[in-house]
């Protein structure tokens, strides 16, 4: 009984310490919310193209292909961080990269691409963010990996890094394309 009185607080401390350590070293960002859309069909939308507003585009056009949907905006500073990686990805031509211009001024978006380079094969403009709502977008940039059947397989929130592209996106895309 006496020893219990000493062991219990120590035990309680150990439990809390282990839980905190697990949370700390898991490297999970609490700001990153796991998307419930993984494994679900990519929500349908019909949006005008950024440059040719008289033309519309919808994700059905990508049926049969593994592709990336990258949500970005000219007002978004972290988008500039991932931009060189997107340009590299575009040069490799391994994955079609569709740009999803989120709540942006079309003029500003086009000027931004002229200045920094355009990695996208197609760009749609969602000026009011209504289609983005269906994708659970809450911060830009966000990137979705969508398979041949139009199912969302992976979602990355925040700027894409060399590590995420090389170790997550590309291996997953290759496995899906097989």
């Amino acid at each position, binding site marked *: *009984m006496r020893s*219990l*009185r000493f062991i*219990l607080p120590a*035990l309680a401390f150990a*439990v809390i310490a*282990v*839980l905190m350590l*697990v*949370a700390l070293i898991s490297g*999970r960002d*609490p*700001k990153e*919310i*796991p*998307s*419930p*859309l993984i494994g*679900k069909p990519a*929500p*349908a*939308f019909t949006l005008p193209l950024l440059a040719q507003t008289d033309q519309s585009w919808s994700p059905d056009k990508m049926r049969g292909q593994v592709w990336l949907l990258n949500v970005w905006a000219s007002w978004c500073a972290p988008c500039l961080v991932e931009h060189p990686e997107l340009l590299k990805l575009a040069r490799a031509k391994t994955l079609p990269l569709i740009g999803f211009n989120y*709540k942006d001024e079309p003029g500003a978006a086009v000027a931004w691409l002229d200045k920094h380079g355009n990695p996208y094969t197609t760009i749609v403009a969602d000026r009011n*963010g*209504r*289609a983005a*709502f*269906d*994708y*659970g977008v*809450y*911060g830009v940039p966000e990137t979705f990996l969508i398979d041949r059947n139009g199912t969302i397989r992976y979602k990355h929130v925040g700027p894409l890094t060399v590590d995420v592209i090389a170790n997550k996106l590309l291996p997953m895309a290759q496995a899906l394309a097989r």
Partner: protein
Amino acid sequence: MSAFTVIAKVSGAVGKCLLKRSVAALIAGLLACSLTSAAEPGPTPADPPNSTLADPSPEQARELLQSDRFRRLAAELRCLVCQNQTLADSNADLASDLRNEVLRQMSAGRDDTQIKDNLVARYGEFVLYRPAYSGRNLALWAGPAVLLALGAFLVWRISRARRTSASVVVDEAQLKRVDARLNDL
């Protein structure tokens, strides 16, 4: 060793064992919870894409904005950019978009559960300030009660131990020995 001390020792050992078990179960539960929370399934977005919903008229929007129902809903939904604020509290751009989304869904005649499910399907259960009562959230809902029960049990054990140790029976021979020692001083 008196019969009582034997009983106390045995019950102590049993108690210890029970305690160890419950603590182990609690740790396992909490760990399981923290590990599984990373992959939540969530309902399917079966309803048509929200981007097809019509905007309410300005009068309708004003009326809805002032309704208790809207206030209640907005107070129960989380803004995802400023994570510790509700949709009602937040000034963030996204919060205002989500408020409009809630308004549109209200004017389209959806009920509270449908609206909440619709948001959960897109943003995960994280948007709800009040988590659902589900098996996955068991540790979350039952945790405090379990901890409270555990604490109460501990307090009971300790106070009982104090009471019994205060009424220790000392025999005559012991008293005499102590007396003799004190006299020696």
